[in-house]
Every structure is written in C-alpha cells, then in structure tokens.
C-alpha cells in the first residue's frame, strides 16, 4: 500500500476513536467520565483483536478485546447489524463489574468487518456499597449485576426488558441509564465513521491498511525490544488491606525481541475485593507498556504479540471465581501496573539509547473514596473524590517527576475544582495543596502528591458518608529507580474534632490549615464505610512519584529550592539528601553539606562503625 493512503487511513482511525470519546463524554456528562476520564473507546478487528486503542484508561484495551472475543464465542452465527452487546463479568473479560463494556459489531454490506468497544465506570452497579467499589464484598455475588454477555440492542432497537432489568438492580437508575445511553451513542458514532471510512477507500484498502498497521506495530516493537539489552528484572509490590499484606511479585524477562511477564511467587488470592482476574492483570501490565515502550507506535494487536504473561491460577493476579474483585482497578491492577512500570523502567534505564525513556513509578496508589448522601440542595449525591486522578509523576533520568502530574495508565485525567465539589456536596475544603516530602527522594525527585481535608458544610443531615477502599498507607507503592526512593505512602485520617475537648481547641478546627492544626484525635481509616459528621474532618494525602538515582547526588541548590517551596522539609533535606541549610534556611551550607554527605556514604559502607 502506498504510504500516503496508509498514513491517511491511520490518522482517520485515530480520529474515529477520538470522536467516539467526545460523544461518550458529551452524553454521559458525569464527573468521573468528564473529569477523571475514567473511560475507554477502541476499535477491534472482526476477530476481536485490537485495531486502534484510544487514549483512556489503558487497562481496558486488552480486556475489551477479550470482551469482543467472548461475545463472538457466545453469539457466533447470531451477531447482526445494529446489535450492541453488554459484558461486565470479570471472570469472562471485564476488570470489575462497574466498568461495563458495550461492544458493537460493525457490518459492511452484510459482512462483519470490525468491532467498537467502550466502557465507563457506571454511576452504580448494585453492589453492596454504593459507587461500584465494594470493600465489604465477600465474593463476586455481592458485587452487583454481572453479565458474561447479553444483547442490549437488537438490530438497532434497544431491548427495554434487558435495560430495565439492569436499571432495576442499581442505585440512581436514571444516572446509570444516562451512562448506558452515552455508550450506545459512542458505539453508534464509531460504527458510522468506520463505515464512511470504508465507503471512501473501499473495504479491501481499509482492511489491508489495518493489517499493515498491526504488522507495522509488531515490527516496530520487536525492533525496539531487540535494541534493548537482554536480561531479567524483578519488582515486588506490597498492598495491605486491614491486617493482611499481599504481594505481587513480577519477574520480567527480555530475550531478543520478546518480553515475558511472570507473576509466579505472588500471594494467593485475597479474601478482600482487591483481587485481579487474569484479564485484569493482562490489562494492568499493558497499561504502562503502551506509553512507556510504544509512545511512537500505534497501539494495537501488533504490540500485544511479542508479549507473554504468566499468572498462576488462584493468586491475587489470577483469582478464581467467586473471589471478590470490585476494588481490582484500584487494588491489585495497580500493583501490576507499578510492577510492570518498575521492571520496564529498569530495562530502559540499562540501555544507552533508551535511558531517557525510563521512569520511576508514577502515582502508584489510587484512593477510591466515594462520598454519598443528601446534599445542601436536598438531592442525593454520589461521587468519587476526583483528586485521585490528579496523580504525581515519577522521576526521570534527566528531570524530576512532575508534581501532581497525572499517571501513566490514564494519560489525560484531571481533578475537579474545589468550587465544583463544594457546589454539589455538603462539604467544605480546609486546604488542598502539595504534600511535603511526598515525592520520592533521588538525584531527580519524584513529583509531589497532594493533601486535602474536608469537613461537612450546610448538610441537611449533619454530614455525609463515604466508602473507602484505601491501601498503601503502610507501604509505599511508587517505587524509585536506580537508587531513588519511593514516594511517600498515602494517608487517610478521620479527625474526631467533635469529641475534642474544649481546652485542646487552640485552633478553630473549621479553619485549620494542616492536619497538625486540628484538635481532634486522629484515626487512620482505610477500608469500609464511614460517616463524616459535625466538625469531624477527613484528611487524605496521596503518594508522590518514585525518585531516580541516589538522593545524595541531588544538586543541593535543587534541594534548597524544594525546601523554599515546601515540597521537601528541612529535616528530609538533612536526613535524606544530606543537605545542610545555612541559618535561616536561605542558602546551602556547602561545607557542612559535603561533610554530611561524606559521613552518610560512610555509614552505608560501614554500618557497624556508625552504631
């Protein structure tokens, strides 16, 4: 095929996905879809293999391919023009029940030529806790509606019986109905545009361009892998739920032009809903792989071919039915993301040519906190704290990570304004700012995360409730690279100002400027449903990105600048970076810094002598 037609068709395929994403956001109108960009739209070939991955939550590109394949298996011979199928069973293909896939066959002149698939995190799925993440779930049966494949639209006509059955099982059915409508509209747009592309260039030309596109991606990734050194890299990720600690253990082996991700050695499946099914793990390892290794390669089936995953059954990365999985996307999937990011980073870092592409782990730890209750206007409100989408960048081999810079698996997320949240929920922010010492120390520092605190405000019920499925409060998760330290762990604190004794109230908790300012007792909360009432506050701090290289090699002037802006404390400057500031903190004491660093090197070499 001539490179020009090929280039035009490739570009058009990307535009199709982009336009479908816009349709999805327009129709949905919800905050998690519009601010968090917690969505995905992609095109698949007739056999369900990935043709054009869109920029959304990248965990889903491969599992939606599996969803297409599962529909093909189940409905073979009965897949008609204008049909749309729903699938959200994690043991068939999905990540968790609340991320519903709608997949539509695209027919041209009666022949099935492609699929489009999309998902949004629906407003509710009828799990035991509102909002989709169900920390209290014991098994998949308590995680809401789940289908291994059902026809929602038949030859262009909505099956009201199916839709009404679904809506009958969820909270806020009108909002879920809107989510469903947005996905239907999105698939319709993708189908129409795909057909007009075929109409313009002809089926054969488009088909061979698609084939060539996939072959080209495979060839480019194989070339890239061949240029990288052979070797084996490992990563361990720990996640805790209540008193249990689970481990995701990854060994990545690169040989010639292939990569094998082996999770042998990971923990047995958990009693809690942080588990991954194998589709979730596969998605979890591809999410960082696309942007880290294929930033200039089209994301499609060709990229998947050189990659193999080994995930032993019965483990936290390949659980067996009926283990609960509703928290997977912010649970073990993230551990898989992090481990893959970490091993890929180590591989890139050991290459001369690709060193600049290496990165420490970014925002490794989502905090899914859904607030719900009656708001100041008398309406029911459910919504995630979109701050979790604000993220933080991992340090790079040539620069610091980006403060509050997002995350790798979801490249175009953002958080809502404080004013937007306060307008719709009966809460008020006390502060929202970068968290001191959150970015992983290193020669290049990990990007900072943030901290915020909220308090009830004008609530008709005296406050609201929230569902939290937090983790990473005990163990840092955003690993550093090449001697860099990890980012700080997350913190979730319930401050009991209501019970604080009047004498201890040297500061009015309503205008507290920091966690330390607040008079109430502090209780760490991570898992379950909790109230937020009266003058109590909820404090959340999230991890920064991992650092790169030895913090003792960081330019002291950069450490001074970090102290000046509050991103690093004077204590960390001294104890972690070995940088001593002159009296008043306005300058680096060069001699004292050199001495401090020398003695810290010595302690590392001769730890016994230091004791």
């Amino acid at each position: 095929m001539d490179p020009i037609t090929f280039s035009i068709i490739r570009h058009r395929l990307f535009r199709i996905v982009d336009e479908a994403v816009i349709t999805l956001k327009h129709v949905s109108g919800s905050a998690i879809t519009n601010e968090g960009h917690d969505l995905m739209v992609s095109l698949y070939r007739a056999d369900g293999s990935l043709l054009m991955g869109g920029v959304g939550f990248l965990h889903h590109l491969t599992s939606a391919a599996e969803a297409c394949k599962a529909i093909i298996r189940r409905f073979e011979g009965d897949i008609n023009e204008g049909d749309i199928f729903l699938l959200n069973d994690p043991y068939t293909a999905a990540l968790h029940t609340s991320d519903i896939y709608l997949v539509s066959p695209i027919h041209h002149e009666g022949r099935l030529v492609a699929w489009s698939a999309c998902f949004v995190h629906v407003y509710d799925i009828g799990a035991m806790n509102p909002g989709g993440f169900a920390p209290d779930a014991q098994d998949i049966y308590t995680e809401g509606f789940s289908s291994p494949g059902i026809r929602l639209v038949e030859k262009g006509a909505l099956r009201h019986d199916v839709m009404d059955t679904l809506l009958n099982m969820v909270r806020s059915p009108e909002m879920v109905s809107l989510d469903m409508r947005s996905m239907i509209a999105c698939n319709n747009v993708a189908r129409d545009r795909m057909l007009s592309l075929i109409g313009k260039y002809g089926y054969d030309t488009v088909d061979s361009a698609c084939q060539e596109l996939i072959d080209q991606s495979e060839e480019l990734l194989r070339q890239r892998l061949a240029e990288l050194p052979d070797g084996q890299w490992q990563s361990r990720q720990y996640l805790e739920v209540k008193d249990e600690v689970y481990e995701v253990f990854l060994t990545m082996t690169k040989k010639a032009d292939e990569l094998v991700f082996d999770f042998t050695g990971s923990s047995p499946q958990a009693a809690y809903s942080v588990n991954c099914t194998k589709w979730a793990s596969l998605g979890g390892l591809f999410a960082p792989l696309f942007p880290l290794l294929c930033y200039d390669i089209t994301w499609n089936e060709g990229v998947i071919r050189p990659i193999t995953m080994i995930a032993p059954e019965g483990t936290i990365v390949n659980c067996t039915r009926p283990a609960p999985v509703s928290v997977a996307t912010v649970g073990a999937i993230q551990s898989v993301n992090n481990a893959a990011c970490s091993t890929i980073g180590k591989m890139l870092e050991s290459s001369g040519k690709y060193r600049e592409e290496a990165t420490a782990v970014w925002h490794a730890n989502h905090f899914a906190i859904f607030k719900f209750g009656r708001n100041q206007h008398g309406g029911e409100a459910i919504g995630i704290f979109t701050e979790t989408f604000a993220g933080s960048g991992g340090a790079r081999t040539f620069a610091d990570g980006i403060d509050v810079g997002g995350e790798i698996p979801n490249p175009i997320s953002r958080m809502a304004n404080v004013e937007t949240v306060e307008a719709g929920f009966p809460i008020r922010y006390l502060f929202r700012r970068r968290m001191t010492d959150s970015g992983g120390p290193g020669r290049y520092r990990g990007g900072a995360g943030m901290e915020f605190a909220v308090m009830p405000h004008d609530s008709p019920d005296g406050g609201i409730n929230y569902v939290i499925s937090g983790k990473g409060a005990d163990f840092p998760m955003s690993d550093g690279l090449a001697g860099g330290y990890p980012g700080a762990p997350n913190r979730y604190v319930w401050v009991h100002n209501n019970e604080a004794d009047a004498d201890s109230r040297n500061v009015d908790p309503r205008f507290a400027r920091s966690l330390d300012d607040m008079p109430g007792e502090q209780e760490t909360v991570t898992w379950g449903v909790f109230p937020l009432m009266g003058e109590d506050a909820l404090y959340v701090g999230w991890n920064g990105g991992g650092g790169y290289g030895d913090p003792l090699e960081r330019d002291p002037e950069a450490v001074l600048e970090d102290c000046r802006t509050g991103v690093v404390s004077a204590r960390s400057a001294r104890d972690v970076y070995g940088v001593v500031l002159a009296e008043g903190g306005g300058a680096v004491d060069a001699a004292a810094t050199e001495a401090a660093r020398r003695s810290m090197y010595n302690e590392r070499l001769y730890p016994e002598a230091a004791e």
Partner: protein
Amino acid sequence: MTTDAPQKRYIVATDVGGTCTDTIVVAPGEAFIMGKALSTPPNFADGVLDSIARAADQMGLSVEDLFAQTYLFMHGSTVVDNTLLTRGGAPTGLITTAGFEDTVFVTRGAYGRWAGQPEDWIKHPVASDRPAPLIPEDAVCGVPERVDYKGAVLQPLDEAETERAVRRLVGEKKVEAIAVAFLWSFYNAENEQKARDIVKRVAPEAYVTLSSEIAPVPGEYERSSTAVINAYAGGIANRYLTDLKTQLGERGYSGPVMVMQGYGGLLPSQEAADRAVGMIECGPAAGVIGAKALGDLMGDADVIAADMGGTTFKVGVIQNGEIEYAREPLVDRYHYVAPKIEVVSIGAGGGSIVSLDPRTNVPRVGPQSAGADPGPVCYGRGGTAVTLTDVFTLIGYMDPDIFLGGAMTLDIEAARAAFKAQVADRLGMPVEEAAFGIFRVASAQVTDLIHEITVERGLDPRDYVLHAFGGSCPILASSFAAELNVKRIVVPYTAAVNCALGLVSADIVHEYSVTTTLPGDTDPATINALYAPMIEKARAQLAAEGFAEADTALDWSIDLRYARQVHEVTTPVYGVTPMDGAALKGLIDDFEALYERKYGKGSAYREAGIEMTLFRLSASGKLQRPDIEPLPLEGPDAGHALTGRREIFVDARNGMAPADVYDFTRIRPGNEIAGPAVIHTPITTIVVQDAQRARMDELRNIVIDFR
C-alpha cells in the same frame, strides 16, 4: 460617536498579526484600500504606522492627511499573545486563600500538561512537562479568608496578614503586578476588594488584577490562572495602548481608538487596557467576524472560515449567523477564562516542513515551519528543508515568474532537487507522484481539523460555505472543500487582510455576567432582578461613549445545564426582556434543542431538571460604517484575463493536466472561469479544480461552485 462622521469620512482599521500588520481603509462610495507591512515586535506601534502609511500611499495621501479625515480607528494586536510567548511580562505575585496556594501550579493535575496537545504528546507522558509557570513558586502568598458556595463570608480577610503578604511580594520578590484570587470570589468579591485596597495603600504603583473582576465565574483554577495572566501582561498592554494612542495623536489622529477583543467586539482603548486577557487571539477572532460580515452581505448564515498562512491553519465556524465560543481556552498552554471566539488551529501552512518518519517513511506536513526566513527552498533564500510551498510549486500551482505580483521569482529546480532527495527517493516514487501524495496528506490534515469542529460537534459541512483566507488557503481549498462537500467556496476580495476587515465590521461590545444557580422553573422576576444592575451599568457605559439609545442593543443569554450534568450551553434569550413566562419557556425550549444539537440526540437528561448557572448581558453600540457598494456585473467571458496555459495537478484525475492561467487583477465582476484553472492574485493563487466553476461576484469575491 457619530457626530464627526459627516466631516471626516474614513475608518482606518489595523490588525497586528504574528508576521504582518494589515490595514484597511473604508470610506463611503470608495473601494477598500489595503496596506500591508511587516510586524515589528516588540515595538508593534512602528509596524502599525508603516502599514497605515502603505495604505495612505495608495490613496496618494500622507498619514497626516489620511488621519485628518479619519473619524474612527480600530485596532487588533497580538501584543498580549507575544508577551506570553516571549515571557516578557512583569514580575508577578499572587495572593490567594490560605491552604490553596498551589492551585495555579498543579493545574488540576495533568490537565495543564496535556491540554491542547496532539496525540503523539499525550501518548508520551515521560517526555511531556507543563509549561514553566508565569510566576515563581515563592511569589504566592496564602492569606486567611473564606467564602462558601453561597457567597457567605465564613472568615473575613485577615488584613494584617494581607499587608505582610503585599510587603513581602513587593519588597522581597520585587513584583510589579499582583493578582488576587480567592475561593468563591465570583459570588462575593468583598474579600478580594479589601485585598486590593490594601495593595493600593501599601504598594500604589503595583498593577492589580482581581479574579472576581477579570473572570467572575466558578472554577478557582481557571479563574486564578486568568488573573495571573492578566496581571502578568496587563502593564505591557496598558503601556502599549497608551503609547499607540499618543503616536497616532502625534500624526494628527484625534478620534477614539477601539480595541478588538477575543469575543469579537471592540472596546474603547482605556477600557481594553485593563483587560489584557481580552486581547488574546483577537486577530483570529476578527477574522471570524470578517467572515460573518461577508456571509451576512452574501446571504450565507452558515460559514466555515479557514485561514492558512505560512505556519498555521486556523478555522472558525459561524452557524446560523451565530458565532461559536471556546469552552476551555488556552493561551500558550495556559488556561484562562474569557469569552473568546472558538478558533482551532494546526501547524500546517505554506512554510510547513514536509518530513518522513525515519522508521516507517510515513509522510507528515508540519508542525515545524521554515517560516518566512529562510522560507521554502524555492524562495532561494537559503532554505533547505522541503515545505508545502515547494510542493505547490512542483505541481504547477505557483507561477515561478510572477510570485507576489512579480516581486519575487521562484527557483523550481532547487525545489525539485530537494524534494527528490528528501522525499520522493525515500518513498521510492517519481517526484510528481510523491508531490501529489504530499498535497493530499496536507489536504487530509486540514480536512480532519475542519471535521473536528463541525462533524464532531454535530454540524454538517454540507450546509456550509467555506471562506478561504490567507496566502495558502485558496491553493488548497478547492481540494479539501470538495472532500468536505461544502456548498461552495468563497475567496474574499479582502482575503489578504481579512482580520482588518473583521475590525471594520465589529461593534462596541461590553460583556457583563452574574453567576448563581437557579432552577429552570424560577420566577422570571428573580431573573430580571439579576439583570437590573447589569443593565444600569451597561446603559451608563454606552451613554458615556456617546451612543444614542437607538444605536445600542442589550442581548441577554443564559448558561443552562441539566442538573447532575457537567455540560453548560449558553442560550440566547430571544423572547422579551425583561423576561416574562413565555420568554422563559422559549429559553428552556431553545436550550433543549441546542443541547441535543451540540451533544447529540438522546444526550438530554430531562428527568433531573434544568438549572441556570450564568446570566450574561452583552451590550453593544452600533458603529456607523459605510455600506459596501456592489459593482455592476459584466458578461461571463474571462478571456481578457487569460494569460496562458500550464500543467497543474488535478485532484480528480490524480495527475497533471493542462489548465488555464488567469490574472486576478484583470478579471471583472460577472466573469466566469471553468476548472481546471489557476488564478494568480498579487498575494496568492486560487486553484480551481476539475468540475468546478469560479466566478467573480459584484463585490469582487471569487466564488467557486461545484458542478
């Protein structure tokens, strides 16, 4: 405002663009006079006077003579864009609500990192940073104060702390400008105003911007960012306009100076001077206003306005006579909120460099540009990288001998050699065939952009007329317009100075707004009460500017949304104002229709109810301007303008074919030309493809119809 008109007959309008400064002079019963000069950053006023001198020259007048007979000067300038682009603003500080000092730096997470960036950037997070902030991180001071979501002051401003903050910013940080941005200040500006009083007292020389005045809308990140940008560039914009007015005065101009705003209206210079953000991208906005004016004149309510110069392709849409406004505007990657006409762009112009992906050989045009200097290879000024203009030359679209009206000749052989080595040989294709391909890639890139702002927003290009402006657009338009299937193409007579034409077509427009949330079934009296103070202010303002009430218009529009949805739609009030029940019902119906048109069928969510969130008043004063007089139409024969015949690339035939070559300056209204043909004008070439027919209308526009 209109009293001088009988004695003084001219309106002079000058638009300062990135490369050129264009002037247009309008007088009753006279053809437009146009002048073009190079822009002269950072002393843009020099270029303004050069450009006016060129126009005056053509009239046989001196600048002083022209000014003596001029009653109105209209102006658009890139000065603010340039200040941001070159980081040439004042050292600026920010005073904000304590606890929220980082708002402008963290840009709502990755939003400030990816907003407005192309696919290849978004797919490559490791290589993508935010732009460096306009203010140093330690020039932000949080002060205790708090207002809540309903505008109640929970905590009054800590004045002592604010005074300390001002002293620190001015004393230690040496700032010359201060932005003040507090939470919820758009509902209750009391604390921001108190802070300004303190700045005025402690540091009277500092330039101050309040977020509640420059951007009185919800969303603290965007509002704070706007205040920072305005403070940063405000001093320069202010000095520029003052200085320009003085220089114009020295050359004898004593009338008002009207300054173009990004929303397509003009403001008197003294008012514009305090709203630097209003001037951002006012040139492209004027371009859309110019297209609208021409569309109105020609009876076309639906217009796609496309402008392609040396480095960028810009496009805006006029739908049913209404202009589309940008929702999340960016300037040089910084977010701001100000009413602004939506104009989207890509880095594709005549100077865009043609490159091949080193690994896959996939061709691409832009976004890198050879600019005007050294420019394309064929200019023979030392440019070595192949550009789109070189490709145009190879496929017969440029006349090597009379480029720019004969001011320059083109080196076609140099272009061919460079293209062969850099592109054709690497593609393994003959030069001509490769050049056709590159032309089609450029055409596809432009088509995709137009698709993005039409089809992807529910608009069908088949209902639209395409206006092609700028030096390169009329070359490409006949190809991409055919693919988009637009109704017809218009290459305006004023294509070369379209933005200046837009200035002449604009009116004085003041924008006011109040933010508050009301349900859709609110009593109209409540809404009218919100408007009363705005109307009073607007009337006083227009009266002070000398407008008789008959020459003014007050247009109401309201932002509505479905409850629990995030998308708001600005909906004009077409019923009576102050509103009655019928007007409100009409507004709600219009909103629902607009919403579905914008976001697609089935997107409306009526069950949750409708809310009104922003109440806007647009107060305009109509400026007196001469009507454009049509010329008499002559017969269709254009033989007198035919200068020869030459092979050009004909899209539908996918090859070179003989075409007639015409001299624009000899074509007369009513003449018709059948494609394939090329028409050389003093500044550009108009390509007429096979199966298309061009004619000159009574306003000297070239109209291309598809047969």
